[in-house]
């Protein structure tokens, strides 16, 4: 029987959380299997059970230090159902939206400027010593500063809407607990023009990278899949609220305008023994073919249009690339992410100019319910929060399907495709080749901390084992 050589990339760098990739080679160095493993334990849902429902929007932010606002808002939407708040006041909904756009903007910016841009600007095979944000600071200091200042702008929006940066309390069951002051508004308006200009600049980099390297982008980690997201009733991009739409690889509707409170009728989760992450799938297509992608790329595929003018134009160009058919290129996530960044900045500007944000009608209530479901488009994709609450107001059931979990199968396919294309049959495995695998995972901006509900760290260790399982090489770095 032929021996198998195993390469491990553990943990993967420039992603959120702790994961590893294993690549199994045969005697001829051909890739037989490649998998993304998540190596932390998931158990946050059990921790939520037994807590009073009104604490949940704050507690769930402990899930992840990267996108706590997404959990805060998804849980708040679920708890709106519990308190019978069928429609929020205009001030409440717009404050939540402002918080959400600030969160998505800062998350996308961080990923693009600090995690992804070194690969795109310097090349996947470039010197790893400078293929990082320090390299960006050295060679393109203005870009690095823009990344920092845009991040800061988004964080300040969060602080102004959520009340504080850590464990914000802005969204509460049935509404919000504060509005936006004139002084806060004017502070943001002073900088919004600059943010828009820089968002355009970042979009240009991502767009130009895709078009200038089109052949490579069309070949790198490309595979057909279905795509899922929330869409507005008229088919527009809506990151805060909407109904579920799923398309197959050919762009045909699998389901559309499904009320997300019925998500259990359409989606299921499968457990596999080698990963702590679950594998969701579309019920009607079964667990083999029912997997799908979520996140910026999927949203650009599922939506019909974007209702802000500049991002709307950018979407049209993006869709033209594939003549309106779904775009299946993993690297196109970067372009899609920057279209959304521009959209968020435009939405923030629109909201800042809306006097409803200074309104004082913040809360509504209605008939108490025992079950609540909140769904939101988080930076990395569709986020589901599902709770049951007993008559004593205590949570008795909690299930979360986080964005990264939806992309689990897709990331595994991306890893395998890139490993086959760039490692198979090569006599020597270089750092650059292994970075190709990481680039594929990184395109999805996975938050493995979130997906496993633990807080992770991200030092890099690449370990190379021979066919007998002996460690023959090891390289480690941070970032």
């Amino acid at each position, binding site marked *: 029987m032929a021996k198998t050589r195993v390469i491990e990339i553990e943990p993967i*760098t*420039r992603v*959120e959380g702790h994961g590893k990739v294993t690549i199994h080679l045969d005697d001829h160095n051909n890739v037989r299997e490649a998998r993304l493993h998540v190596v932390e334990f998931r158990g*946050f849902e059990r*921790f939520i059970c037994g807590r009073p429902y009104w604490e949940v929007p704050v*507690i769930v*932010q*402990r899930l992840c*230090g*990267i996108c*706590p606002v997404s959990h805060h808002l998804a849980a708040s939407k679920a708890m709106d159902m519990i308190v019978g708040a069928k429609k929020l006041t205009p001030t409440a909904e717009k404050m939540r939206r402002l918080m959400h756009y600030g969160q998505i903007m800062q998350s996308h910016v*961080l990923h693009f400027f*600090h*995690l992804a841009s070194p690969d795109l600007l310097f090349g996947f095979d470039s010197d790893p010593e400078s293929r990082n*944000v*320090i390299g960006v*600071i050295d060679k393109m*200091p203005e870009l*690095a*500063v823009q*990344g*920092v*200042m845009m*991040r*800061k702008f988004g*964080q300040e929006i969060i602080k102004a809407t959520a009340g*504080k*940066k*850590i*464990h914000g309390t802005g969204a509460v069951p049935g509404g919000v607990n504060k509005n936006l002051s004139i002084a806060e508004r004017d502070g943001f308006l002073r900088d919004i023009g600059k943010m828009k200009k820089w968002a355009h600049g970042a979009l240009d980099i991502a767009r130009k990278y895709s078009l200038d390297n089109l052949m490579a982008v069309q070949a790198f980690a490309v595979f057909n899949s279905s795509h899922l997201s929330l869409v507005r009733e008229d088919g527009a991009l809506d990151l805060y609220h909407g109904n579920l739409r799923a398309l197959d690889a050919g762009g045909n509707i699998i389901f559309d305008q499904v009320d997300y409170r019925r998500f259990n009728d359409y989606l299921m989760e499968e457990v596999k023994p080698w990963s702590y992450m679950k594998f969701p799938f579309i019920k009607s297509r079964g667990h083999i073919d029912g997997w799908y992608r979520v996140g910026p790329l999927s949203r650009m595929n599922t939506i019909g249009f974007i209702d802000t003018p500049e991002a709307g134009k950018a979407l049209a160009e993006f869709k033209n690339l594939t003549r309106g058919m779904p775009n299946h290129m993993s690297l196109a996530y970067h372009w899609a992410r920057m279209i959304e960044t521009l959209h968020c900045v435009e939405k923030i500007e629109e909201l800042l100019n809306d006097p409803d944000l200074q309104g004082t009608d913040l809360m509504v209530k209605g008939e108490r319910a025992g079950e609540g479901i909140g769904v939101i488009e988080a930076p990395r994709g569709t986020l589901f929060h599902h709770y049951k609450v007993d008559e004593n107001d205590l949570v008795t059931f909690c299930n979360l399907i986080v964005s990264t979990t939806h992309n689990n199968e897709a990331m595994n396919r991306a890893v395998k495709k890139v490993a086959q294309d760039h490692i198979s049959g090569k006599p020597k495995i270089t750092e650059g080749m292994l970075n190709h695998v990481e680039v594929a995972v990184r395109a999805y901006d996975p938050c493995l901390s979130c997906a496993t509900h633990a*807080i992770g*760290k*991200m*030092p890099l260790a690449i370990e190379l084992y021979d066919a007998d399982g002996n460690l023959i090489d090891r390289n480690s*770095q*941070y*970032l």
Partner: protein
Amino acid sequence: MTLMAILSTGTANIFDLRSGTVLVIGYGNPGRMDDGLGPALSARLEACALKGVSVETDYQLVVEHAHEIAQHDHVVFADAAIKGEAPFSFTEITVPDHQPPFNSHSLSPEAGMFFARTMFGATTKGYMLGIRGYEFDGFDERLSERAKENLEAAFSFIVKLLGR
């Protein structure tokens, strides 16, 4: 550790903190017990509203803190210490000449200082206040009893040090 004890260790120029602008960044996850010591210190200091002292709170140090750091003459990083001296340690930070090890979402104070200098030309002086904690594994928003005592000691120390 007392102020006199700090002085006897030769920590340079700490009385400079009594003039100029000071940024205190307390960081950590308050949902993981004593990891919340940094934010707890920030909360105490914020309530004092000391003149010329800005207070920040965050889960971890991130790259945008570099901009905040660069706006101040001094920065004090307050974090929970998993091991080391109780009730706290206080040391001056040396900004490295070369790229310090870091990951993108949780910088070390040295990396934060490095970014402040390389991106924003900062000449800020930095100090590390490590408050000894003991329990970090629970999902709980309370500090352990011993950590509470250490927080009190660190708070008294930093207020005296800031001298305002």
